[in-house]
């Protein structure tokens, strides 16, 4: 018995020591994948370009706040995470950070004092960035971004998520990949695209599913689940691979146009993707947007034809597409406009068909297609219902300055009617998705226009 107690006590002591070590032993930073000379200098503009490609602004600038001065509330299931000030202000920003400190945050998710960053910061993806880009970005932030004194609210999550040392364990599961980029694409354009998609673009943060531990399930092109679709705050980030995915359904040029302008012949960028276009992708070169489109197109072996340019500024007449084979029956039914049609179809004719047409094809670069649209048929119905109730807006971009705006129908349609309409959209023109209930609609309506 005594021996047994001694063993128990010994194990307990060992456990405490291990826990203390886990909490207090300093975290190791990963070594750079490439050694750059100390006097290496980025090209002029390189750092700013990396900043755009990495979409730092999206999270680190608050609505109406100073550029990169933090303070944007990022909703998470565990509580609100407040983005930090990454201007070179010495007191409230990162002005005192050495390059090694900066690199530790980007690659290992660790701040200079050893605190772990919440993985809302996509260091899982930034870990793949080249040493040159990281250096250029650091250089840009330290020398070109104006220092802003802005003390942001401290993130206080509920227990146990407030214990940041727990992220150390999480990182053991999530950061199994080595820092630095490993190309697996065959052409130069696709390799460049792969780098931008996997690394700075951090597309997988939304478009890959999550594991049971909430780490990204698929970080590089060699991972099976990479970019097979995820769910963020009730919105589908659609799959970017697979026969039904947009990159396989659209031409490389159409996909590149979507990235650069938030619109193409098929779709318009809503929600988070609209912000990505606004803050990040519209600032990239045509070459890079084409490269990303080419990588996504060819990721599973499809042939890639590279367009020379995208979003030409010439005046073109873009005729709306006729109904496709899967959509013909619905188009014919709507055209006949019989008084006996279902309520959903009637509501479509009364409210939607003036812009999206009986074909469900919409009009190129203005009114998105509803047939085979991932937002319409997604597993999550909140985005579709929210857009019907509250409308939507696609921001203007440098190449396509016109803001696209759809009005909301919250005052015109009841919950039952929105449910009937949404259910119709999810089953029309060959769409095959589940019905929406009035209770679903009521929940979205109650959440208000901010969601």
């Amino acid at each position, binding site marked *: 018995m005594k021996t047994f107690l001694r063993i128990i006590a010994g194990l307990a002591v060992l456990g405490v020591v291990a826990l203390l070590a886990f909490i207090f032993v300093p975290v190791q930073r990963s070594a750079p994948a490439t050694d750059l000379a100390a006097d290496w200098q980025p090209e002029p503009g390189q750092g700013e370009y990396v900043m755009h490609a990495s979409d730092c602004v999206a999270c680190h600038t608050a609505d109406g706040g100073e550029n990169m001065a933090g303070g944007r509330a990022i909703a998470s299931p*565990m509580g609100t995470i407040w983005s930090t000030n990454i201007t070179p202000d010495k007191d409230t920003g990162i002005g005192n950070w050495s390059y090694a400190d900066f690199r530790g945050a980007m690659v290992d998710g660790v701040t200079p004092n050893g605190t772990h960053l919440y993985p809302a910061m996509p260091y899982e993806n930034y870990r793949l960035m080249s040493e040159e880009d990281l250096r250029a970005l650091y250089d840009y932030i330290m020398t070109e971004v104006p220092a802003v004194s802005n003390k942001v609210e401290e993130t206080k999550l509920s227990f146990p998520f407030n214990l940041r040392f727990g992220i150390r364990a999480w990182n053991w599961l999530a950061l199994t990949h080595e820092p630095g980029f490993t190309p697996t694409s065959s052409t130069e354009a696709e390799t460049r695209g792969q780098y931008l998609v996997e690394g700075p673009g951090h597309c997988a943060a939304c478009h890959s599913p999550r594991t049971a531990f909430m780490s990204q399930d698929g970080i590089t092109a060699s991972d099976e689940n990479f970019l097979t679709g995820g769910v963020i705050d009730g919105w589908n980030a659609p799959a970017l691979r697979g026969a039904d995915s947009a990159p396989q359904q659209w031409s490389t040029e159409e996909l590149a146009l979507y990235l650069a302008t938030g619109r193409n012949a098929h779709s318009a960028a809503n929600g988070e993707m609209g912000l990505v276009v606004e803050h990040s992708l519209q600032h990239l070169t045509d070459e890079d947007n084409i490269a990303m489109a080419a990588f996504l197109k060819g990721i599973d072996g499809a042939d890639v034809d590279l367009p020379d340019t995208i979003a030409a500024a010439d005046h073109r007449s873009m005729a709306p597409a006729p109904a496709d084979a899967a959509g013909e029956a619905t188009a014919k039914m709507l055209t006949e*406009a019989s008084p006996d049609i279902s309520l959903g179809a009637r509501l479509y004719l009364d409210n939607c068909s003036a812009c999206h047409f009986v074909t469900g094809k919409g009009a190129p670069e203005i009114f998105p297609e509803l047939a085979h649209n991932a937002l319409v048929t997604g597993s999550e119905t909140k985005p579709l219902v929210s857009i019907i109730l509250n409308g939507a807006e696609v921001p203007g971009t440098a190449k396509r300055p016109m803001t696209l705006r759809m009005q909301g129908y919250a005052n015109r349609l009841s919950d039952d009617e929105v449910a009937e309409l949404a259910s119709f959209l999810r089953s029309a023109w060959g769409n095959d998705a589940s019905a929406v209930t009035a209770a*679903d609609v009521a929940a979205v309506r109650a959440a208000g226009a901010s969601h």
Partner: protein
Amino acid sequence: MTDIPGLPSRRSFLKASAAGMALSGLALPAAAQTKPAPVSLDDYSPEYLTADEWAFVMAATARLIPSEGDGPGALEARVPVFIDLQLAGDYGTADDWYMEGPHDANAEPARGWQTPLNPAQVYRQGIPAFNAWCEETYQAEFAALEPAQQDEALTALQKGEVGLPAEVRDFFTILLANTKEGYFADPQYGGNFEMQSWVYIGFPGARAAFREWPTRHNVKYPLGPVSISGERA
């Protein structure tokens, strides 16, 4: 990036449960809309018109678009409600009109509004003047006359035989125009109740989507109207 993705939310659980209970196969009939019936015209409390003026507007509009014969009359379409609400609103007060004058009652009609009175004041002064003429001619005010007498009196009013003061010279013109507007305007303004006039003339309302129809010659457009607020008929 405004979220940490991945955790199943309480909402998605609720949604999944609700979906299990949904009667997704049962589509509602297209015209089904349940709205409480509005207060009857007899019990209606006017916003602007007095009781006497209300009685006149009811009687006069009922002769301008009568209920007998084809289609709904002004009363079925609740035209008096439309007129009352318009007179109570910025039409009645001529809110955004140029009202400084000069006003010349003898000017050609094409010269526009030729009275310093706003429409609400034209009704307020026109109705008693016309009723006084009716008393003189038929020994009863307009609302109490037989339909045939009312038609006669309105015809006299229209032809300018009533001898109204110059400032209410256009009373009949305004009354007739307002009656037509109340009959055909979108129901949100109080008239055209249940879009009866649109159904009657085959106007499909605020649908704004007939791209397929200009080339479909000699085919009757079959679908009933929709109002601006989404009412269906």
